[in-house]
């Protein structure tokens, strides 16, 4: 008996010591740890997709989930704020204080705007790309070498893209090219940032294909050669390397993957994102659950009944401004874009009924015309917003190339591309070959074509001309950095190397 017990004890001890080998490896079942996260090709696919997802959220805006110091519950569609609000073209018909403060460049004193000065999500997208570039090279299973190279190229693209976008918003920004980089980084000159963006884009251009298989929307929401070239060209424009920009853009034009959609194709482009004209956009699709909430898509603010349940306009372009921007429409209503971008609603109909749309887009007078470029009718409970957020599209590329060519003195080439866009809009071709006049017209065309597409302010800031259009900004102010957003308080925490933009050291 005693022996039996002894044997039993011994065997159980043996069994236990076997079990003990793994006893201390407790891993979560609701998520994975860092060691588990980088094993196969699908991990790499997911990680790269995640960097795009974070960038998408960065454009929509920081929320309480992202940082404890933020009071904002939902994203506000910050891309609009950064890229359009201060262009001087917009008003707030219901006198919303937040919008008005934004128009007036009161970016610090209005505390509700504080989260917009926080770049944390851009650096999350950058860190996610850094992690991909650190870990994916070590993954060998579950994908082809070609796909691996593509994913790494996409990470370069996204790292460049996030730096580029942040630099357009804040000017000089820290450059972070290594994972888990907790050193307090100071801001680098804008020029260095753009050069780094060009280098990242070049890495991507060398590897990325023009197209993947899949719908246009899906393909163009990821890093492609076209998107990387567009990024490179935009960065080079900031560096005033017009030849480089023109060459990069030329590759997109030569390739022929993208083309201008007919004016009838605008609804596909701005409602569903399925268009040959789009080169890079943010992916939204309510049918697979990827929609932005009540706030996240900016169209919530400028659409009303019959598209959303909102009864009054919060954001609009005034009638006089529309007529100023679209002189051809003012003259003979020839610019077809006005009817595509603006609508007037019969506000006399009660808000519980579907309000009819007037035939005349500008029927509603000075302050009540709805900006309806993005007007995908969604469920009227306000959420499930999944309109496209275009970053680069072919018209933007043609006009950017026209600007580069014009500045290089290639007037004829510039005119060709400018007139491609004008012809589509149904307005007469521009024929003046005087360089300054041509450059001015190209900028105006960009304003007409890209209104509400988060480009206008960056064009003006790039050229140092925001003060000409926004009365709240002076010429000296713009030289001191008024065109850029101030840096949030949070960026100064634990970072002695952080500096506030000169203008914002003295202005609120």
């Amino acid at each position, binding site marked *: 008996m005693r022996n039996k017990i002894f044997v039993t004890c011994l065997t159980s001890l043996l069994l236990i010591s076997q079990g003990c080998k793994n006893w201390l490896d407790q891993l979560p079942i609701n998520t994975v740890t860092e060691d588990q996260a980088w094993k196969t090709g699908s991990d790499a696919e997911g990680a790269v997709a995640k960097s795009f997802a974070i960038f998408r959220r960065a454009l929509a805006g920081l929320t309480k989930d992202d940082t404890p110091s933020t009071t904002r519950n939902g994203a506000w569609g910050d891309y609009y704020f950064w890229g359009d609000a201060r262009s001087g073209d917009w008003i707030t018909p219901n006198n919303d204080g937040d919008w008005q403060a934004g128009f007036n460049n009161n970016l610090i004193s209005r505390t509700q705007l504080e989260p917009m000065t926080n770049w944390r999500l851009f650096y*999350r997208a950058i860190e996610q790309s850094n992690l991909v570039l650190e870990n994916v090279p070590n993954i060998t299973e579950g994908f082809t070498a070609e796909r691996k190279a593509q994913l790494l190229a996409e990470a370069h693209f996204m790292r460049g893209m996030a730096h580029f976008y942040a630099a357009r918003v804040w000017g000089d920004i820290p450059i972070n090219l290594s994972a888990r980089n907790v050193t307090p980084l100071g801001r680098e000159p804008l020029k260095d940032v753009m050069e780094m963006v060009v280098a990242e884009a070049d890495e991507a251009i060398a590897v990325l294909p023009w197209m993947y298989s899949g719908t246009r929307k899906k393909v163009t929401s990821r890093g492609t050669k076209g998107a990387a070239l567009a990024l490179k060209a935009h960065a080079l424009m900031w560096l005033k390397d017009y030849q480089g920009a023109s060459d990069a853009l030329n590759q997109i034009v030569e390739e022929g993957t993208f083309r201008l959609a007919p004016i009838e194709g605008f609804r596909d482009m701005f409602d569903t994102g399925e268009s040959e004209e789009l080169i890079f956009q943010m992916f939204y699709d309510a049918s697979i659950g990827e929609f932005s909430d009540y706030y996240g898509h900016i169209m919530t603010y400028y659409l009303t009944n019959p598209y959303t349940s909102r009864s009054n306009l919060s954001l609009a372009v005034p009638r006089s401004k529309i007529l100023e921007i679209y002189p051809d429409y003012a003259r003979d209503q020839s610019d077809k874009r006005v009817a595509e971008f603006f609508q007037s609603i019969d506000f006399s109909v009660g808000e519980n009924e579907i309000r009819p749309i007037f035939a005349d887009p500008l029927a509603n007078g000075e302050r009540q015309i709805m900006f309806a470029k993005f007007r995908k009718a969604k469920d009227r409970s306000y959420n499930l917003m999944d309109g496209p957020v275009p970053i680069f599209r072919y018209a933007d590329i043609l006009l950017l190339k026209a600007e580069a060519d014009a500045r290089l003195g290639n007037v004829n080439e510039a005119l060709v591309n400018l007139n491609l866009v004008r012809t589509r809009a149904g307005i007469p071709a521009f024929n003046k070959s005087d360089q300054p006049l041509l450059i001015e017209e190209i900028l105006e065309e960009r304003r007409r074509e890209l209104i509400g597409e988060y480009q206008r302010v960056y064009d003006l800031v790039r050229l140092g001309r925001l003060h000409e259009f926004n009365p709240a900004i002076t010429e000296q102010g713009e030289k001191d950095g008024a065109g850029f957003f101030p840096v949030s308080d949070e960026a100064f925490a634990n970072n002695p190397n952080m500096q506030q933009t000169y203008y914002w050291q003295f202005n609120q």
Partner: protein
Amino acid sequence: METIIQRTCFLLVVLLLPMLAFAQKAHTGKVTDQDGEILIGATVGVKGTDRFTVTDINGKYTLSLKVGETIICSYIGYHTKEVAYRQASDLAIQLESSVEELESAIVIGYGTQIREEVTGSISEIKMDKLTETQVADSFESLLQGKVAGMNIQLNSGEPGSKPTIIIRGLAAVSRGDASAVSEPLYVVDGVPIISRTADEFSITSTNVLADLNPSDIEDVVVLKDASAAAIYGSRAANGVILITTKKGRRGKPQISFNARLGINYVPQLQDVAGGAKEREQVARLYASYAPYGVTMPAMYTDANNPFYNNSSDWQGYLYNTSVTQDYSGSIRGAGDFGQYSISMGHMDNKGILFNTGFKRYSTMASTSFNALKNTLVIDNTLAVSRTDQTRNPDGLSTNYSTLLPLPNQEIVKGAEVYGLGKSSNLNDRIRFSSNATLNFIKNLTYKASLSLEYTRSMQDSYSASRRTLRATNSSGTSESRNLLFQNTLNYAPKFGDGHSLSFLLGQSAEKIETKITSVSSVSASPTLSETVNWPTGNAIGSSNYTGSSILSYFSRLDYSYKQKYMIGGSLRADGSSKFGQANRWGIFPSVSVGWNFDKEGIFEDVEWLESGKIRASYGVSGTTWNNDYLALGIMDGGSLDNYNSNLEISYGGISGYSPSWYDGFKNENLTWVKSQMSNVGMDVSLFGNKVEFIFDAYEKLTKGLLLTTSLPTTSGYNEVYRNAANVLNRGLEFTVNTNINAGTNFNWNTGLNFALNRNRVVALPDGNADIIKTSTSGQDFGSIVRTGTPLNGFFFYESQGIYQTESEIPVNPKTGASLLGLQNKILAVGDRNFKDQNGDYIIDVDDRIYAGDPNPKWTGGWTNDFRYKNFGLNIISTFVVGRKIVNTALLDRLQFGKDFAGTGSMPNFDNYSIWEKSGDVAKYPTLNPWNDASQIVSYDSEYVEDGSYFKVKAATLSYNLNSKMLNRLGIGRARVYCTFDNIVTFQKYSGPDAELVTIDGFDASGGYPMRRMMLFGVSLGL
């Protein structure tokens, strides 16, 4: 059961009898214990022969004997006795219990130790006396004031709430609220149990330990110093509490029953100005401060208004006398077969506040079987319990204006005046443990034990907003599983001349898993449902899981020479799944020495010295943290946002992982929090144990407490955890016990203990930067953690009185601008004069100072036990000296906003010195409700008060019934008693009870007062 035992014994006797048939001359005798109880199955033999027998069911034996032979009688649990047979009377053998010998051993980690040989700082509390006559939700509150250096504070009077236990000083740091408490480890019958649940996994707020029926506990041993506790390694830094449950004793079965009924009385409540007094006070504030054109609400001015004449006593309405019932019963017994113990208990403690209460149902069965001639002992314990706490979901306000009618008044009958709702909180626990002890050879014991523990908490709550009539439901379940496997080998030989050795080698593996599932909903619901059954889209559900495991190897070696010189050491290695491969194992050593100086020759003739010991020890123990995966680098797959969108989860339908940005990345450097403790002590017992004196001095340095450091935004991460904070606790502990017998009828025992603890922060992260405690949502807690000062000190504005004249308000000579008050307040006469510490003419956070220490300096307790004939009187008091607290509950009620009239109740202004006109020497500034900033600032050094108190906690008068009369009724023992609980508190504090404050010294407003109780009970033993 008893019959089975009897039959077994009888059978044995019958089987053995034939073997003895050859005996020549048989004599019959009887074996009893010292009380005359017969002993069945005792072995009786003749020395030097192989003749032996066992006693039968009547305790009788028959043995052939010759005069002059020596009878040897032995029985487990009794001293073996030798009797020389000369005459018939010698055949009646009386054995003496060896239980005293057992009692002189004390339970320590993974074993027992002879009291005399103990070298660590260990306190033992026999619970029987406490649990028999007192009733408590949990055993912890019964330990209050019993152990020097163990500070137990009942922070709330709510039934089922958790007391705070801090052994030898607070050693926990957090950036947020002060809920970081250094919790001890709880071990029940050798098995560490689940004593708390991490915040994110806890569903109910009920004290997890309240499901242990205090009546089941035999004794509690507190391991205070490192030499005693370090054997528990990584969880022992804050002390270890060893709980031993009651077991059966030999003799006839012990059947006991204890029934008591307590009446809970409402104690002193908040001071309220009722009816006319409230009208007068409101009128006074309006007359003094109301801006032009602002008039009082009609109910204060119009005598015809139905509310005008009300004087509602809201507290009186919602607080009511309630009843507590507690029943427990048990059957226990033991014999050669082993022991059994079965107990049941039920407690129903109704709260004094409307809709609150606590119930406990518990049952426990413990059995031991001896096999293989007692070389194998198998113990099984099964304990099942449930606690049921009822609460008001959103906290019930008892502070309505006295002009508002009570819900029972005709005028509002049927209308719901206060928030509807109910919250039920169930905690269930099942503990099962089984262990086998094998005595291979002499002095060598092997023990294997397996224990399983399962806890489940469930909360179902329903609450409705009075204003919107919208209802919220939430249901949640949290489950924890704990699996523990322990193996120990004990070798305790005695050799040579007085050398004794005890060697322990052990291994344990433990795994703890917790899972939570909860759903909640918000809906415009007209029904009162406590479950969530709203349509899809309205309910938000979530679940979560966490698990951790520990693998440990430990050893202890104790050596004693003639019980005079002792030396001991222990070593434990703990590996935890919470750490990365590189940093997984922590080593926790300890050494201790002891000298029983009374055994030295020079003390031989000192009559009054009974015993004396000097002890010293040093050791390292540890703690970890709640977040099981912190060091591993948790990746985040994203979650649905508020609008059920996948935006944070996938992009183009592809989902992936990113780091969890909030807690930073994989952090292999994270390691054990280690606590180094040295202790010197002395135990002296004088005058035949009439006076006992225990002294301890300790120093405990807790190193590497986990704190976050925020990271630059450019990293993408919010913060990272580091082992960054060090806290030092130093203290002295004194215990004096006396035992005075005056004649045979009168006996007086006292136990006085007091302990001094000084607490100091030694190091903090980010270059010792101050931590101003703030919640994640930015709420300022008014506490600071600063190096060189005690933990969680008040961080307040320094009061310099009240501005009596305009000229006292400082003016900046450079700008001509007056000092700007808090919240940019324009200062005026009657406002608080805060010192502008940095001279920038603005009062803001930079002007705060360290304004007081909320940690108690002295804590202790004093117990007196008188016994006269059959009467007993027991008085327990506790005290705290030298702590600072703030009456935030009162300050909150003095903060009036411009819509103050007709909402909340008001304190009676006559009881407080409130500034009204120039020249008033007042504690509180002007209470102008129309001021642009709050007049009463809670973080004001003026309001820091002395939180010392002396509390007579309980007094019991008991009477033992006459045993002759009881015998006739078939009752062995009976006692009736009456206990008064929470009798009186002596304090300087302005609030109702200086004990009911948070550990960081704030009287939490809306706190639940501690009831006074009068308890009547009968305790029977059959």
